[in-house]
């Protein structure tokens, strides 16, 4: 036999009263009463979000208010749960950012499908999608949880544009025009 049968020792008198155990337990409680709190009164109190946290993905605009997404659909391609849906569109020739040529006509993220992996942020060549600090979302229907473009921009806000690729491009075009 691979196991051994142990005889259970009978409890002695003190143990049978359970008092030593209760006193030990109360001591621990009393000690913790004066320690620093480790719990939060969520949702009234929110935890501090660490750097690099991956919350909900949102679209962002550049400081001039241009939508940075050019609907290259790489995030749609890379998204493991296929939460992202994009319908690309053309920027009309008379628009302010006509030189960018392309922008999403529709951009939906199904937050019920999203797994917060951050691949979309990683793959984006235009730095237009960022995972934010928000982590709790709720809604009354599935449709409500598919966030359209407008809502994603509203939640995303403005991000600094450290490369200013399109700005430089516009500037180069203007300079070239000035030179004839």
């Amino acid at each position, binding site marked *: 036999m691979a196991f051994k049968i142990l005889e259970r020792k009978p409890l002695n008198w003190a143990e049978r009263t359970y008092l030593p155990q209760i006193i030990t337990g109360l001591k621990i409680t009393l000690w913790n009463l004066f320690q620093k709190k480790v719990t939060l009164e969520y949702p009234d109190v929110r935890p501090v979000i660490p750097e690099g946290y991956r919350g909900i993905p949102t679209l962002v605009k550049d400081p001039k208010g241009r939508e940075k997404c*050019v*609907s*290259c*659909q*790489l995030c*749609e*391609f890379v998204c493991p749960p296929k939460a992202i849906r994009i319908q*690309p*569109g*053309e920027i009309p*020739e008379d628009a302010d950012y006509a*030189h*960018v*040529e*392309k922008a999403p006509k529709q951009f939906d993220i199904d937050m019920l499908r999203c797994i917060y992996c951050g691949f979309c942020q990683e793959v984006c*060549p*235009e730095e237009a999608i960022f995972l934010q600090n928000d982590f709790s979302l709720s809604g009354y229907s599935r449709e409500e949880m598919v966030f359209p473009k407008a809502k994603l921009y509203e939640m995303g806000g403005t991000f600094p544009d450290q490369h200013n*690729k399109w700005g430089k*491009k516009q500037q*180069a*075009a203007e*300079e*070239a*025009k000035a030179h004839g």
Partner: protein
Amino acid sequence: MTGRDDNLISVFIDEEEFLVPPGTNMVEAARLAGKEIPHYCYHPKLSVTGNCRMCLMELGMPLKDHSTGEPIIDRRGLQKIGWMPRPAIACATRAFPGIHIKTDSELVRECRNGVMEFLLVNHPLDCPICDQAGECSLQEYAADYGRGYSRFVENKNVKPKRTRLGPRVMLDDERCILCSRCIRFCKEIAKDDVLGFVDRGSYSTLTCFPGKDLQNNYSLNTVDICPVGALTSIDFRFKMRVWFLKETPSICAESSVGVNTHIESREGKIYRITPRRNDEVNDTWIPDSGRILYKSIDTDERLIHYTIDGSHTLVDGAAKEAATLLREGAVAVVGSGRASVEEQYLLGKIASAVKAISVSLVSRTGDGDGLLVSADRNPNVRGALLTGLITSLPHANLGGLASAIESGEVRTILSFGEDLTQCGVEKQLLEKVNVIYFGSHCNETGEVAKVVFPTLTVFEKAGTFINQQFRLQKFLPAVPGPQGVLPDIVSLGKLCSILDGEAIPPTGPEGVWAEMNTEIPQFSAIDFENIPINGILIDGSQWEHLPFIEGMSLHYDPDNNRQIMAEVTKSK
């Protein structure tokens, strides 16, 4: 090493011997040997200009003594190879006996790296907004042979980004690498010489000649052969990224040329049609008019219900009703040159089962352009001949049918996909008889029909066409049809099995082919799955005396085809 019986010569690619036909272009020779020589301006179906310099390789040839003509032998006892001091371009080098090339030496790698760097100097960082991304040679070769970062600190060239070259083609000059493929295509294939380069050096720009537009019916091929995203299709522009698109091999139903195509779709929606290379039929080209045929499949005009007297039913109910009408006799069958071989065969079976008074086909004609659109706009008239549906060439007018209806000779008409009101039979006349209509779209015949079977389009079903060369080519379903509509083979098969009492109707082309194998001698030993992707020539010599209306087109000469047919007959 020369003069083999099979007329192949040996070439040495990276010190390995390969046999290739004499005069093979070295890019192609390397491809035959399974090695890739990167190239931009070279295109197998266009003339060689050698201006991109991407296909540089090291070239050597066996040395001979000038005075004696004897081969010089090195210490190992092999003929010495004289390597050229400078690299040569592979596209302009033809294979000769004993040619040695190096496709992956240190020098070659350096050359490619240098060429890539120059090409990328003025190339914009447009990949995120460029339609070519994903099928772009520049992207691919930059990844394979490029340096990975840019040393260029000056401003990139600024050129026009949205130039309309014609009604269907948009030019982005910044992306152009000046390979001149589009220019050569227009000049050599489309015979519409409208494109050219203007200005010099880094100001070189592709443009149309003054007062001209790139508007020939083959203009979109320039978009296909453009190795970068300089030329884009206005129709497909910004619609979908190419890496999402699924390619399904298909056949263009525009005319009897039978252009091989890829239907590119995503999630049941077709986004574009591109040519599929078939050196026997269309090379790598397709007319623009064939590219837009898919647009009609998603309209409200589509028939989506099986109906009897306008009320919805299921396919079995419709087949039963149709069978009852057909059994009454005095039936005229109108087939279609747009139907697949399988459908025509089943239709022929129905016609003989009900002893149809007449079986006719409606011809569609137009002007042939001598390239890839023929005068016969029915893709499959020869299929109807082979399956025995018809014995003579079709007419555009069904006047005979109209008079037969008037005289009361015909009481039931079975029309497969043809709107009879368009070919000489008035709607009022049709109201006098029972019409059974198979069709994909609503029309006047469908309106007066007693029984309607909705059918699928060529994009939604599998089947075969026989083109003007008597080449049997198959197409596969690219997208699903409307919900609840069964493939035409199934609905025809059900009707057919009721009429001739067969227990199991075919469910797909495979089943019909199993039957046609035994029934049609020319089709013996062919089964649907094994039809090669480039098609297979069928012995059509029996019908070669018919006055087919097609003229010359690419890879088709009506006179020559008789000879080809004779050879096919002989080989069988």
